[in-house]
């Protein structure tokens, strides 16, 4: 049976040794275990003999042949060790080639086979080096990676510990198989596992790149480096095929052949380096292998494994059953490019193997000779000279033709095939007309092709390509204007005239119309930019030529026009921001804004410390003053616009009067903050029935630094205000004037002022038109017409929101100073929470109701019973607080009347402003009230007004519903609001999705309000929480505020003396709860209402 099996069986044994046997084939081998081992031993001996013969060969391919045979021999011996264990281990002694002379018998060596020795049990173990814990080691064994654990001074690790080391190194995904063990110094044997190189490559490259296996041993790291090198070589296409007999001992006319891929153009220095540092542990499974041969075998094995892996994705043709003709053989080779074996006539196959070796020799022989392809920059005629130089022939580079004449024979022989290779890849080198071989003149087009396309290919083929640096980046053209102020003119500022000159810049290359025309006429328009050659796009050149032609007659512009060009607010070909250089108002202005904005220090007398961005804002306000410009200070809500402007007013105290126009809700806040931060400023509130008029107002202003008024009052008193020469006008909540045709916007423009400043946290609520209205108010006429402004600034943006952001970015630092809480630098400066007190007006309806409730309480008489009397008073306080919220909060509670909410409450108007700003920023807000029914009305009102569903969370809802409301609010994206009753929602909930809190009404206990705010400001909140407390000055609301602020006790409010409620006299009650007209903020039409009235009038 053995004889009958022999031919097939031997092929099967060889297939298994190569790691390619299927499980069925392995089972067949297992069935003939003895024959398997015997065949392996015979193969080992035969391969060793072939190796002995190969070592005596000469010629450039000798190293590779020897490495191949060593590889084959190791494959067989490893298989023998794996199948038979230590009893059948074989050691090959390659020292027979070291010149030691013939070996003696009796040392275990095969009697007839020099260089081969059967292994014996390890004897006198040498002492291990005493350093280091065991680490993961790797050895190479005939195309397989063997892993084991050990280290100097440490016992080899057990199989279980090896699994841990493998796991730690990230090698677990590889399918490792048990290995017979690895012999170690000292005679120990390490448990080991093994896998074909192809399967372990991914992990090894991961180790080589440092992604995994940081603690592996030096042998594993060395193999990992080799895997990385092999990957690099194949990725660069540096490999060639070889044809080899797979079982060289066969003597028959037919043999088995396979194609193996070997590295080409291997860097000799790098190879020498890896050989020098190869740890002996790498060859622990084949200790006879010298480092030189082992290193080459490892690199070749890994290159072959990658190529085979790649070829598995191809469907290659089937090889002829047995190639007996040259054509059959060629087809067999092509079919086996993926590594498959095929049978062929031995003589024919070996002849072709030799011819393939000779074909690939120019890239496999390590001659040390290389070629340099050098392209010189163009001469004056635009001709680029290409020359080929030889390296490694003399101490410096020499022209290749010179090298072929002057070099020694060996070098000459090495140069010629390299030049031939180069000429095959770059046929232009063979073009007739060159003065000498290896030199050719290139056109600009050819030079660009060499620099951009051919150069990388030649590099991949192993040539050193030296070309002028190029950039593939397509430079974008941009218009540049050189402005020069017209001499001897009287106009200044935005009216100043300038002579202008136009050009187009591509990166740092400036081109005028003549330059562009010349480049456009060239086959390939190349320019040198920042030391690199770049190709200009023809369409860009055409556009640049058209843009310059269009502006050829546009040689004199006003400062405002120059500024509009710089901001991209002017039309034309290549519209967009224009770079402005030169001199004059606009150029100087733009140069100043290009510099980093320096923060300004707080002026003397300012009581407080400005944050960094506020100090920068202050610097920007000074810049506006010096440039004679108005602007828009667009700090986000809560970032402190008021103190910043107060610092600016204080710094410029004495320049002349400033007019500050605000919504009624923040008028009191302005006065309070002025008193707090800039007490030196003379501030007067111009509001209410007792305000000054005409001459009296002018006289008042003459001794005042700042006049505070509201939009409604300013509209009513516009004639008086317009008669005063204001140094500064400041409009707060400037979105009020976003409708430029509204009465408010028109009236405010009539008030003369040296500079105008608009304050808003939301400069763009509905579109760029809002921003235009604000800027056109601040600088009349400067930013051009509204349609042009909107269209130019939204030209390159993706959607309206992006257009707004882009516009603010474009204008930031010049006409706009924008900072948001979302900026990390700003957020870092902000406190976790900002508390803001908003003073709200009372409408006439609210005042009437308030008075009526108070009168009823006092006129109808208080109960004699102290407890009943106390109840009467507290009920009245509740009613008054409801009225301060909204008439409907009281009426609905009392009689169910009233349905329309809009325009009937100052607090509601302020809430609208806050919600608008919050929603414009895409953020979320919680609104607390302690009147649940009012909360429901408020939620319905906000739902209708904003178009977004706003729910009300209160104690009357089922627990499941409340949970759902909280979950929906928390999970919701973008703008949103939730109304909560203070009692039900004031504690326990987590509502960090909101970063704004509005306390619509006040509660006696500040802790209750803090708890409400803390629904948002708690763990999980990453943004600053802004809390608004709405208060109606001059009402019971303010009395509550004083209690909350700790300025008085509840007892003081109701009981001024040590008495009881029953002792309180009616006049005392009126004093405690009544309206204080001096503090009251009465309602007035807002800008929007004025605009609405205008529309009605027009209708």
């Amino acid at each position: 049976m053995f004889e009958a099996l022999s031919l097939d069986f031997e092929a099967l044994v060889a297939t298994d040794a190569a790691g390619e046997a299927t499980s069925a084939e392995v089972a067949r081998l297992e069935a003939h275990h003895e024959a398997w081992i015997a065949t392996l031993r015979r193969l080992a001996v035969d391969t060793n003999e072939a190796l002995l013969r190969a070592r005596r060969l000469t010629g450039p391919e000798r190293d590779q042949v020897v490495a191949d045979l060593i590889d084959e021999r190791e494959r067989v011996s490893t298989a023998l060790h794996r199948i038979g264990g230590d009893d059948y281990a074989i050691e090959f002694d390659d020292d027979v080639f070291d010149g030691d002379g013939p070996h003696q018998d009796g040392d275990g060596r095969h009697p007839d086979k020099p260089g081969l020795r059967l292994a014996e049990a390890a004897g006198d173990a040498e002492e291990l080096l005493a350093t280091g814990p065991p680490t993961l080691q790797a050895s190479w064994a005939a195309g397989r990676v063997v892993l084991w654990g050990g280290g100097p001074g440490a016992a080899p690790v057990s199989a279980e510990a090896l699994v841990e080391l493998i796991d730690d190194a990230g090698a677990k995904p590889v399918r490792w198989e048990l290995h017979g063990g690895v012999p170690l110094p000292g005679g120990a044997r390490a448990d080991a596992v093994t896998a074909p190189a192809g399967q372990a490559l991914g992990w090894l490259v991961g180790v080589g790149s440092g992604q995994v296996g940081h603690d592996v041993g030096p042998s594993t790291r060395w193999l990992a480096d080799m895997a990385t090198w092999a990957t690099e070589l194949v990725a660069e296409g540096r490999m060639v095929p070889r044809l080899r007999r797979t079982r060289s001992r066969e003597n028959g006319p037919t043999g088995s052949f396979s194609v193996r891929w070997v590295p080409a153009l291997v860097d000799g220095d790098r190879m020498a380096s890896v050989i020098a540092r190869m740890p002996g542990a790498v060859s622990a499974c084949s200790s006879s292998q010298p480092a030189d041969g082992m290193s080459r075998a490892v690199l070749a094995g890994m290159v072959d494994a990658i190529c085979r892996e790649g070829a598995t994705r191809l469907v290659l043709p089937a090889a002829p059953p047995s190639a007996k003709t040259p054509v059959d053989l060629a087809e067999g080779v092509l079919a086996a490019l993926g590594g498959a074996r095929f049978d062929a006539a031995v003589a024919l196959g070996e002849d072709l193997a030799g011819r393939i070796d000779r074909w690939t020799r120019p890239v496999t022989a390590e001659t040390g000779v290389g070629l340099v392809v050098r392209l010189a920059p163009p001469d004056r005629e635009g001709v680029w000279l290409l020359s080929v130089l030889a390296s490694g022939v003399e101490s410096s580079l020499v022209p290749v033709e010179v090298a072929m004449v002057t070099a020694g024979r060996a070098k000459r022989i090495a140069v010629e095939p390299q030049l031939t290779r180069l000429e095959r890849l770059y046929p232009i080198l063979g073009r007739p007309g060159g003065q000498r071989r290896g030199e050719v003149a290139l056109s600009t087009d050819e030079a660009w092709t060499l620099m951009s396309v051919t150069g990388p290919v030649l590099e991949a083929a192993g040539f050193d390509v030296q070309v002028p640096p190029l950039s593939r980046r397509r430079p974008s053209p941009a218009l540049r204007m050189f402005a020069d102020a017209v001499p001897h003119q009287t106009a200044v500022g935005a009216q100043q005239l300038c002579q202008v000159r136009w050009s187009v810049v591509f990166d740092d290359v400036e081109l005028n119309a003549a330059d562009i025309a010349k480049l456009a006429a060239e086959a390939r328009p190349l320019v040198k930019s920042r030391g690199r050659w770049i190709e200009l796009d023809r369409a860009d050149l055409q556009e640049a030529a058209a843009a310059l032609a269009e502006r050829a007659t546009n040689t004199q512009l006003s400062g405002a026009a120059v500024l509009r060009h710089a901001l991209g607010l002017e039309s034309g070909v290549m519209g967009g921001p224009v770079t402005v250089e030169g001199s004059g108002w606009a150029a100087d202005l733009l140069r100043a804004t290009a510099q980093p904005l320096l923060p300004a220090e707080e002026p003397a007398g300012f009581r407080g410390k400005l944050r960094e961005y506020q100090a920068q804002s202050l610097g920007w306000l000074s810049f506006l003053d010096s440039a004679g410009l108005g602007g828009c200070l667009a700090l986000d809500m809560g970032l402190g616009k008021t103190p910043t402007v107060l610092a600016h007013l204080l710094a410029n105290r004495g320049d002349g009067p400033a007019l500050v126009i605000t919504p009624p809700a923040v008028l009191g806040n302005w006065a309070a903050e002025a008193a707090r931060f800039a007490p030196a400023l003379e501030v007067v509130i111009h509001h209410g029935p007792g305000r000054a008029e005409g001459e009296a107002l002018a006289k008042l202003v003459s001794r005042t630094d700042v006049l505070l008024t509201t939009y409604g009052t300013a509209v009513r008193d516009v004639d008086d205000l317009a008669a005063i020469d204001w140094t500064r006008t400041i409009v707060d909540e400037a979105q009020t004037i976003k409708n430029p045709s509204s009465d408010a916007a028109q009236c405010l423009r009539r008030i003369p002022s040296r500079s105008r400043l608009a304050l808003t946290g939301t400069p763009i609520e509905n579109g760029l038109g809002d921003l235009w209205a604000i800027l056109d108010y601040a600088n009349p006429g400067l930013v051009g017409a509204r349609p042009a402004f909107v269209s130019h600034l939204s030209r390159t943006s993706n959607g309206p929101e992006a257009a707004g952001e882009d516009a603010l970015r474009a204008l930031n630092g010049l006409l706009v100073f924008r900072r948001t809480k979302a900026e990390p630098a700003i957020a870092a400066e902000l406190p976790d929470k900002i508390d803001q007190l908003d003073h709200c007006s009372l409408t006439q309806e609210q005042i009437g109701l308030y008075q009526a409730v108070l009168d009823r309480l006092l006129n109808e008489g208080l109960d004699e019973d102290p407890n009943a009397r106390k109840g009467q008073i507290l009920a009245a306080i509740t009613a008054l607080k409801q009225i301060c919220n909204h008439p409907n909060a009281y009426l609905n509670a009392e009689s169910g009347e009233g349905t329309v909410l809009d325009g009937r409450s100052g607090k509601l108007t302020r809430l609208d402003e806050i919600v608008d700003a919050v929603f414009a920023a895409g953020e979320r807000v919680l609104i607390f009230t302690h009147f649940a029914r009012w909360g429901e009305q408020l939620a319905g009102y906000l739902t209708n007004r904003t178009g977004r569903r706003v729910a009300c969370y209160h104690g009357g809802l089922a627990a499941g519903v409340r949970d759902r409301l909280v979950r929906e609010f928390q999970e919701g994206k973008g703008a949103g609001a939730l109304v909560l009753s203070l009692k039900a929602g004031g504690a326990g909930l987590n509502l960090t999705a909101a970063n704004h809190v509005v306390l619509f009404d006040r509660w006696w206990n500040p802790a209750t309000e803090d708890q409400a705010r803390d629904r948002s400001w708690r763990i999980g909140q990453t943004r600053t929480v802004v809390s608004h407390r709405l208060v109606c000055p001059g009402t019971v609301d303010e009395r509550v505020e004083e209690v909350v602020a700790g300025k008085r006790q509840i007892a003081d409010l109701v009981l001024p003396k040590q008495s009881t409620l029953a002792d309180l006299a009616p006049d005392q009650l009126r004093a405690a709860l009544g309206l204080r007209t001096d503090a009251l903020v009465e309602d007035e039409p807002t800008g929007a209402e004025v605009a609405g009235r205008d529309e009605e009038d027009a209708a």
Partner: protein
Amino acid sequence: MSRRRRTNGVPPADGRFWGREDHEPAPASKIRPTPDPGAMHRSLGNPPLAVSPATARRHLDAVYEEAVRAATALAAANGLLDTEYWEENVPAGPAPGE
């Protein structure tokens, strides 16, 4: 007498066997895949195979391309790809020498 005969098949127990633990290899350089996988074999001229050169070239090109692709994937998976160079060096025109 050779050293291996003395050690009787056991590897030498010196620093050369274990290598240096403290040896820090240079960081792996970024890999730049060739923009033209077949350039190497084309530079060598027609292979010595008894089939038409075009047929031989077609087969070789296919294997080179897949091998380069496999190596590139290996490099990319391990963060070794010089992506900047790769993006900039995809040939825009026909491969030279064709």
